[in-house]
């Protein structure tokens, strides 16, 4: 089978999901960041919780293809902050920016252009600036169960100790705070 078919299909599901869920809508993203319209935040919470639970189940069946990012904590924080700035300014991220650009939003298209510019500058500064910063606070490609911050004597905890409480508490909070009536 053509190796492009699988990523095209999964990408299509993802792009379609972004549009149908309302995340590909800068007004929804800004609404959540302004703590007024929580639709995007709740959608993202479900996205994360379902992904976390499903991935854990896959790992039990030995069907999960993990690709854990390196825990370069400084660059993860700084990069997140930079992305957060852009997200708060525009209401877009790389995925939703693409989805909105193709949905007729000209401002998203301009934002995507800016993204190519950011990628170019990244190429330019990566060797001299980012690579050294990566080395500060680099804990390797570790997961929370592998980095037992609370019990240093353990080398690895069962992921269930993380997944079950997070999913259960998350689900309870989402249920207790769910909007009633017309609001969604």
């Amino acid at each position, binding site marked *: 089978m053509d190796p492009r078919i699988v990523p095209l299909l999964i990408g299509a599901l993802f792009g379609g999901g972004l549009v149908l869920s309302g995340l590909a809508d800068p007004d929804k993203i800004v609404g959540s960041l302004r703590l007024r319209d929580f639709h995007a935040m709740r959608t993202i919470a479900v996205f994360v919780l379902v992904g976390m639970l499903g991935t854990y189940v896959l790992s039990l069946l030995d069907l999960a293809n993990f690709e854990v990012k390196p825990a370069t904590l400084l660059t993860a924080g*700084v990069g*997140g902050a930079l992305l957060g700035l852009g997200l708060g300014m525009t*209401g877009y991220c790389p995925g939703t920016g693409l989805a909105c650009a193709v949905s007729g939003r000209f401002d998203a298209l301009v934002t995507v252009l800016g993204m190519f510019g950011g990628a170019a500058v990244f190429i330019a500064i990566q060797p001299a600036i980012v690579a050294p910063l990566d080395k500060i606070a680099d804990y390797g490609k570790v997961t929370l169960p592998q980095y037992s911050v609370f019990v240093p004597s353990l080398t690895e905890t069962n992921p269930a100790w993380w997944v079950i409480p997070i999913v259960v508490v998350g689900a309870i909070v989402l249920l207790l705070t769910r909007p009633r009536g017309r609001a969604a």
Partner: protein
Amino acid sequence: MEELTVRKAPLPWWLGGLLLGLTQVLAIAVSRPLGVSTQFVVVDSLALRQAAPAYAKAHPLIGDKVDAKTEKVLVNPTYAGVGYGFWLDVGLLGGALLAAILVRRWRLRVNTVWWRASHSSVLLRLLVGLVGGFLILLGARVAHGCTSGQFASGWAQLSLSALPFTVGMFVFGILAAAVFYRRVPKFE
């Protein structure tokens, strides 16, 4: 005409989130976690290889390595061609376009409701878009991933890196939104 109220999303929060979460699980089962931002660097890298081949091919990140013993050129596995990630992003474009048309949300727009509530200049919106986009991708690649690759996929895998990324993203996202969107528009 421009919209003045924020519309409801096509799907309720629990269904849209479920759809996205299941897509993530499918991705991890079939190949690898979702990710979007690397391809922007790939496209730039491919362009650079045409425009400035000497610089590009010798670049520590996007360039090729030479095997010391055989002196064979090892073409960069990530940035020298289009692979899985590229076609995922292409699929994303196609799926988004199809979905937008299906739910009748495809519309030529230059502005957002939240922006219009606080600003009158469309030009400023586009300028902010350009600068914002720049920060988004620069931040994403500095962090080794974006809202899909670091945040969504990070939490799905319980990656340690997702923690500082999430904190940075929300703190500065909330701050930036508060600065650029002072007035609250009407909601549907």
